[in-house]
């Protein structure tokens, strides 16, 4: 009983957080709304990253590849025929002649993310630790390199622009879908098995869990969510360049996950919202804001600060602000039986 | 009063929540060999690791010459504690000579280094004979000798030995124990963790039996003469 209640709270807390952010955001002026929209897209990306990294304990620097593919594909699909002829004249026929609604383009983006993750994951899931980190980084390098120059699949070196944008409620829905999928996955038998391999790979393997296969499942689901989140991103911004879906985004999303706490869904959501907030504040401050007094920070302070925050959290509290635990009811509200449960990551 | 070199007082070690050593008190005087026996997982190796500073204490304290032992493993090596770990842990890709030279890292100064080297090569002629061989090519027994020689070349006051007889033929074990006695006579106090219970009880000045993280029994060579009684007592202690 308490277990089920715990699970419900673990889902409800991040969902409530996202609802509050969207509701608050919708009341603000358009510029602020953009920042809140940004935060919601970040939630979706970080949750996607969490599905793999958090549950498997294996590092990935490559998830932004899936975001990039999702963003470009979803953006291109929603452009009208004339716009395509204008900015994408050299593109493959199929892509040039197809135009879909945003919703359909998001589904296709998710599918593309899943397929890409499957193809990349089949060989890469054999790796863990350092090799996994470096190999996934290499995947990112290849993806951005190819998108940047191959003008048959995208706009090449120029930006993909004129993409129709969506409001904060769509972005909220997207973030919620990502959270629910992540939650369902981590409660599923497959998710539980993968979490077991995170705690003790040898023991898990000995008890018959196929580590590679479980990792691959998570990688594909995570890739699908990342592609989907990429679609959200492009429909939030209205345009995209490869620089926006490369090392910097990899870094900030990893920072969000690490700061929140790698091994919990609540951590992923909380980290995404906190760092997004900090990010927006610092970006404003670089332009000059009034917080009782006029504050203007030199350009570049934003990323230096986020880098420093991430490094500090890694050194001082490697398990993140949530400690890698899901949100739970305070002990006195819960049955005595629940107190026997072991804390995660012990 | 005897010259007390090492003293453990109510030492506690935990791995996570699991106690690995509980309330352990024992001491080692100058020129003594003290045995530590017990079943697998009883906490014998952990005790050595705690002395060496490889695992943190959860309680109690360890004293070297009456003052509290602190610091990293390398500090303790420099304070005169040598560890011969279980499985020897020689550097297989380095030569025998290089392995020995690493042992010199624990020395504060190089005075007397030559005599100590002679002493060590006298005890273990093999390390002189095969000085330029790659250590990984030595036999198990030879590797064990190298591991002890490597620890001794820094002239430690205390030698911690973790199951030195593991995997060795009985005859080799006998020679090894004789050499340990010679080392003791050279002024080194030895704390010897062993699986071979009866042999250790006969050989060591005192032997403590650990089981389930606690000290159950202390035996002396006199107890060894009691034959079957000893076996029964040991079995009872092991199972407790």
């Amino acid at each position, binding site marked *: 009983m308490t277990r089920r209640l715990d699970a419900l709270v673990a889902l409800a807390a991040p969902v409530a957080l996202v609802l509050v952010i969207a509701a608050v955001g919708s009341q603000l002026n358009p510029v602020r709304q953009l920042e809140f929209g940004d935060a919601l897209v970040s939630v979706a990306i970080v949750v996607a990253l969490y599905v793999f990294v958090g549950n498997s304990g294996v*590092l990935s620097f490559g998830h932004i590849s899936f975001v990039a593919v999702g963003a470009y594909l979803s953006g291109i699909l929603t452009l009208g025929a004339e716009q395509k002829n204008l900015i994408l004249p050299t593109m493959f026929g199929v892509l040039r002649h197809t135009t879909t609604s945003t919703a359909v383009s998001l589904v296709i983006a998710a599918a593309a993310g899943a397929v890409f993750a499957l193809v990349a994951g089949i060989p890469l899931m054999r790796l863990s630790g350092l*090799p996994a980190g470096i190999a996934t980084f290499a995947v990112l390098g290849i993806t951005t390199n190819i998108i940047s120059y191959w003008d048959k699949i995208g706009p090449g070196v120029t930006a993909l622009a004129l993409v129709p944008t969506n409001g904060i409620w769509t972005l909220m829905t997207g973030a919620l879908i990502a959270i629910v999928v992540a939650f369902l996955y981590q409660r599923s038998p497959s998710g539980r098995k993968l979490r077991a391999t995170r705690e003790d790979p040898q023991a898990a393997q000995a008890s018959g869990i196929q580590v590679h296969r479980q990792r691959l499942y998570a990688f594909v689901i995570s890739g699908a969510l990342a592609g989907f989140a990429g679609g959200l991103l492009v429909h939030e911004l209205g345009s995209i360049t490869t620089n926006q879906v490369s090392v910097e985004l990899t870094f900030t999303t990893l920072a969000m996950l690490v700061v929140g706490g790698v091994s919990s869904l609540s951590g992923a959501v909380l980290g995404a919202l906190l760092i997004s907030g900090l990010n927006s504040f610092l970006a404003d401050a670089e332009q000059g804001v009034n917080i009782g007094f006029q504050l203007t920070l030199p350009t570049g302070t934003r990323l230096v600060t986020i880098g420093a925050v*991430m490094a500090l959290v890694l050194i001082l509290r*490697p398990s993140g602000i949530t400690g890698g635990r899901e949100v739970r009811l305070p002990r006195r509200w819960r049955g005595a039986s629940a107190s026997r449960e072991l804390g995660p990551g012990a | 009063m005897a010259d007390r070199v090492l003293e453990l007082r109510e030492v506690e070690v935990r791995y996570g929540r699991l106690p690995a050593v509980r309330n352990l008190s024992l001491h080692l005087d100058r020129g003594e060999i003290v045995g530590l026996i017990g079943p697998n997982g009883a906490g014998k190796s952990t005790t050595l690791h705690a002395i060496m500073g490889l695992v943190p204490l959860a309680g109690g304290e360890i004293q070297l010459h009456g003052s509290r032992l602190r610091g990293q493993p*390398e500090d303790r090596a420099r304070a005169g504690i040598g560890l011969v770990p279980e499985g020897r*842990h020689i550097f297989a890709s380095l030569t025998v000579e290089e392995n020995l030279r690493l042992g010199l*890292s624990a020395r504060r100064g190089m005075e007397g280094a030559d005599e100590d080297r002679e002493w060590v090569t006298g005890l273990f002629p093999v390390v002189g004979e095969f000085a330029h061989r790659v250590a990984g090519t030595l036999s198990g027994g030879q590797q064990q000798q190298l591991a002890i020689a490597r620890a001794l070349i820094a002239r430690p006051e205390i030698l911690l030995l973790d199951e030195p007889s593991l995997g060795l033929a009985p005859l080799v074990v006998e020679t090894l124990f004789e050499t340990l006695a010679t080392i003791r006579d050279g002024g080194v106090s030895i704390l010897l963790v062993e699986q071979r219970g009866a042999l250790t009880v006969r050989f060591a000045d005192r032997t403590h039996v650990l089981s389930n993280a606690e000290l159950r029994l202390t035996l002396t060579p006199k107890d060894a003469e009691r034959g079957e009684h000893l076996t029964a007592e040991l079995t009872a202690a092991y199972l407790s």
Partner: protein
Amino acid sequence: MTFLQSLIDGIGLGAVYAVVGVGIGLVFGVMRLVNFAYGELITAGGYTLAMLSGAPGIVAIIACFAVVVALALLQERVAFRPLRGASPATMLIATFAVSFLLQNIYLLAFGSRGSTVGTLGGLNHAIAVGSLRIRWITIVATIAGGVLLTGLTFVLNRTMLGLQLRAAAADFQTARTLGVRANRVITWAFAISGMLAASVAVLLTVQSPLVTPDYGVSVTIFALVGVVVGGLDRLLTASLGGFAIGFATAFVGDLLPSSGSVYLPSVVYGLVIIVLLLRPSGLFAGPRATAAERV
């Protein structure tokens, strides 16, 4: 003829990459840490040289070494020492964070447009051998690379510090129980890798003098291939791997038409992945289970 010319250019760059590979491999060997922020050491050297472009060459170079070694030691002390013993993934994220942090500090301090290094610019002059043009820097880089690697090999094989470094790389814990001081060995590893990074900065800024905040990134990533193949115990293959990648970058980049050479990073990254898949347990095999982990 262009073929031979490209070959010669390739050797100059290959020598530089070989040094980078060894610099990364050395720290990895001792600490099991792939320092993504190694490139930022090279960048720091580049900026130092750029700021001292007017000063006599020897002054600029000495300053470059001082700054880079100091930054390497600072990285170790502030960021990596507290994380010693953390999981490889955490350490990798940490070096990534340090790399990112430093790049943005450079951006903040020097802007994105880049600073130009004038030190040793004269080395770009070429001597003509038949119809071939051999730039002085190619010769200097090749010799410098050779000298640095020989010197390092000497230190590793002939000195007590070198012995301790090799022992620490093989089994750190046992080395410590023998009295090898962890902090000292690691500090030295970082100091030496810093010296190598400073040398790289001096050589590389002659060939590409415009220093930007991400100056050292691609060199570092590419040279990682060398480290992936080799390692501290295989210093030779680490440097050869680095050399091969540097060589290929210059050589293939020269020969390919520009429409193809823009994909060179993809080829190199692809190579990284293949090497990792073929040798996942080679260099990157975790340290042996230490005695302390067994009860």
